[in-house]
């Protein structure tokens, strides 16, 4: 029948038009979104480099260039560090050691922040920080900054590598063995701390194992200890409980690696990690079906991180407009991102460590084994005012009102360079590539969502507008 034929032809034409259309390139806001979530935000040039690519190409570009080592030289004391012999120390020597460790701790934090603000691979640092917040260890407990440095190197090496390999490695990591008390765990008196967090916080998640499971797992990790002379990992066979255990319904003379393998066998582990990554990269509300899909990719791919991150960065949820600008910048995001965006010089990275600590994120010293809660918990009345004060300080708009340094024990006078700072933002705007010189384009560059307070008129961008966008509540979102 002619009618039907006409209909069929029409449908074929429609199909021809819609099906093989080439994937569209990103727009500037989308390129910015990917850079803000996968790193510490992007400059105009970085956005321009990604914008012509498709989602898949852009995600691949970021993942392909991600490194696994830091470019910043490590602190000098790291290389030949050996554990101090506290037992034979005098009180004065112990005090001196404490001071040394305190100073080294500051240098360690400064080192990482220097790496974050200069790295060519921000995703590497974002993921290293993700794992630091997952496999937490703290200077407060471990004491030796060198061990935390080595753990950080380990986390970075595996940050975008293989989760299974990272899990096996972290269980032997000296800082972790000290932090969760496994170094002294021995047959007959197993310490359950590591085994508990391994199940609750590192793999399965709470409620997905029994107390009996973790007690048995603790037996399997007995003897995973440290060498007294070097603090390197050492398996002490005499301390190890080689007997039969029953863990998660399986029986065997399991050791620690066997337990890890059992945990990696469980589907809950992949889902647990995917949910955490979703909160890191996508939104505070993980989508159950998407989590299952991504967890399957993760598990079936042998826990390789890059395919999983590629799947996240190309998921519809990642790009959905309703998920843009809905994650709160961490203190590190805020500080490092601002430094990178405006290419601000830093006199001493230890100041940055002090600042992120003040804002609630003391690197290498998470509040407890669960790490920083993150999300909206970053914003309290206290931290919001500190953040606004910092940003006002950056833009110079707080200068005039801060000529009273007596407050809170601050003794040193403040240089008054408000005009200097105003001029800095004028220069910064003038230096933007031509397409970014409009007020709306610059707003896209600086904010994930439209500003709340600042009025953006359809005209040329100005330093004054840049400063008001920095002070806007929207600047705290990514």
């Amino acid at each position, binding site marked *: 029948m002619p009618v039907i034929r006409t209909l069929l032809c029409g449908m074929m034409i429609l199909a021809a038009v819609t099906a093989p259309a080439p994937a569209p390139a990103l727009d500037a806001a989308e390129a910015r979104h990917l850079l803000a979530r996968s790193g510490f935000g992007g400059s105009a040039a970085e956005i321009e480099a990604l914008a012509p690519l498709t989602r898949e190409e852009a995600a691949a570009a970021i993942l392909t260039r991600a490194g696994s080592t830091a470019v910043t030289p490590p602190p000098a004391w790291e290389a030949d560090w050996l554990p101090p012999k506290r037992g034979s120390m005098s009180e004065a020597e112990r005090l001196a050691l404490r001071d040394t460790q305190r100073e080294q701790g500051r240098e360690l934090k400064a080192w990482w922040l220097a790496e974050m603000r200069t790295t060519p691979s921000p995703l590497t640092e974002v993921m290293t920080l993700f794992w630091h917040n997952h496999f937490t260890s703290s200077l407060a407990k471990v004491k030796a900054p060198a061990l935390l440095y080595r753990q950080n190197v380990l986390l970075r090496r595996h940050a975008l590598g293989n989760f299974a390999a990272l899990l096996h490695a972290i269980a032997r990591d000296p800082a972790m063995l000290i932090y969760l008390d496994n170094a002294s765990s021995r047959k007959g008196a197993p310490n359950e701390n590591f085994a508990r967090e391994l199940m609750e916080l590192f793999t399965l998640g709470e409620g997905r194992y029994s107390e009996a499971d973790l007690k048995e797992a603790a037996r399997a990790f007995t003897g995973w200890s440290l060498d007294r002379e070097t603090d390197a990992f050492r398996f002490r066979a005499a301390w190890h409980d080689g007997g039969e255990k029953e863990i998660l319904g399986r029986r065997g003379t399991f050791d620690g690696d066997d337990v890890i393998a059992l945990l990696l066998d469980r589907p809950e582990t992949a889902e647990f990690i995917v949910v955490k990554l979703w909160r890191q990269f996508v939104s505070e509300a993980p989508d159950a079906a998407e989590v299952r899909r991504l967890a399957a990719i993760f598990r079936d791919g042998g826990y390789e991180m890059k395919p999983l991150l590629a799947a996240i960065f190309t998921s519809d949820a990642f790009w959905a407009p309703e998920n843009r600008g809905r994650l709160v910048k961490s203190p590190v995001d805020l500080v490092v991102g601002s430094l990178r965006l405006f290419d601000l010089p830093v006199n001493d990275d230890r100041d940055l460590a002090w600042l992120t600590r003040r804002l609630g994120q003391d690197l290498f010293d998470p509040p407890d084994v669960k790490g920083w809660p993150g999300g909206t918990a970053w914003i309290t009345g206290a931290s919001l005012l500190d953040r606004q*004060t910092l940003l006002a300080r950056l833009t110079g708009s707080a200068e005039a009102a801060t000529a009273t340094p007596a407050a809170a024990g601050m003794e*040193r006078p403040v240089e008054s360079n408000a005009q200097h700072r105003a001029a800095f933002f004028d220069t910064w705007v003038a230096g933007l590539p031509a397409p970014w010189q409009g007020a709306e384009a610059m707003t896209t560059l600086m904010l994930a969502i439209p500003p709340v307070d600042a009025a953006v008129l359809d005209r040329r961008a100005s330093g004054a507008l840049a400063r008001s966008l920095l002070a806007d509540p929207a600047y705290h979102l990514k």
Partner: protein
Amino acid sequence: MPALTRRQLLTAAAIAPFIGTLPRAFARSAPAPRILVLVELNGGNDGLNTVIPYADAHYAAARPTLAIARDRVLQLDERLGLHPALAPLMPLWQAKNLGVALGVGYKPTNRSHFRSIEIWNSASTAEETLQDGWLHRVLTETGIDGTAQSAIEDPAFDAQGIVLGGPEGPLAGSALAPVVMRDPRQLGQAVRLLDGQETPTGNPALAHILTTRARMHGAALDVARRLKEAPPITTTFPKSALGRQFELAADLIAAGVPASFFKLQHSGYDTHAQQAPRHAALLGDLAEALVTFRQAMIEVGAWDRVLVVTYAEFGRRAAENASGGSDHGTAAPHFLLGGRLGGGFYGEQPRLDDLEGGDLTPRLDFRRLYAAVAQGWLGLPPAPGSLGRHAPLPLFG
């Protein structure tokens, strides 16, 4: 180009005068609220050189260079006396406005500053880690927020905390919604930095930021207005950091800011070396500030509704160390001051001839002190989850 220097960042923090969350300005029909002022002796005070067992020969023996000579000790009774730097407190002792809780601590004492103050702040056991302060726990458990069975209908206090020194500590948590104030001169700055629109939004993260900002802004405005309207206090405070905190507390109380809970911090007690002059200066500063605060409270007619309590993460070891200092220890005495206090000693001085590994044995669990404050001062029923198991000290008659 503006470099981000430590100096500027420090100042950036210093101008954060008013940090916290929401003011809970209840409409009060009851009389003026009771006030609790908590003073953290940060670092762990050397109790043995604060309230001194001068009659015990073991004291001088344990402290060849640090012991205060018997004739310099300000005697409170035939066994115990105050460090001479605490002389300003003697009239309060005689007026029975000063209480001394002896041998306060917990077992087993954690020697980490960080961990031990966490235990004191939250009144947790040594095994659990809690984020909320003990006052939050007590208030929520006894229903100040109306959620528990024993909800308090007409509390004797305003459930709002103000932190004037150090972290929120015992005030942390939503029940007191603590506001942190660093310097009243900077209130205007906070008002300006947190001004802005509270636009309705479907973005939950943005909504959280805007709500937090509006609450802070409201609190800053409210306090600034009250301080402006209140008549100034004529009592002159010491110019030390602690003196300034007490001065601000007095100003806020006199201005009728609806907050009952103040947290102050006196830093520097971690005296591992060359302790003698530093400790004397600290105690002198503390005593001056306390006495001046009492004067100011008497001036504004508030002393009868004020209770001041000191606390610290731990005391120090019985024996002095080789550096003329003292190391992290266990039990220590703490001071209570207030117009309605019975005064005198509470508990027993730990014995110096019965040390545990060189340390005093805590004789009074700090949670008994807290329970006394919660029940005896704030008028709360026993808190079922936190302090309920600890018999309150009989502080008030």
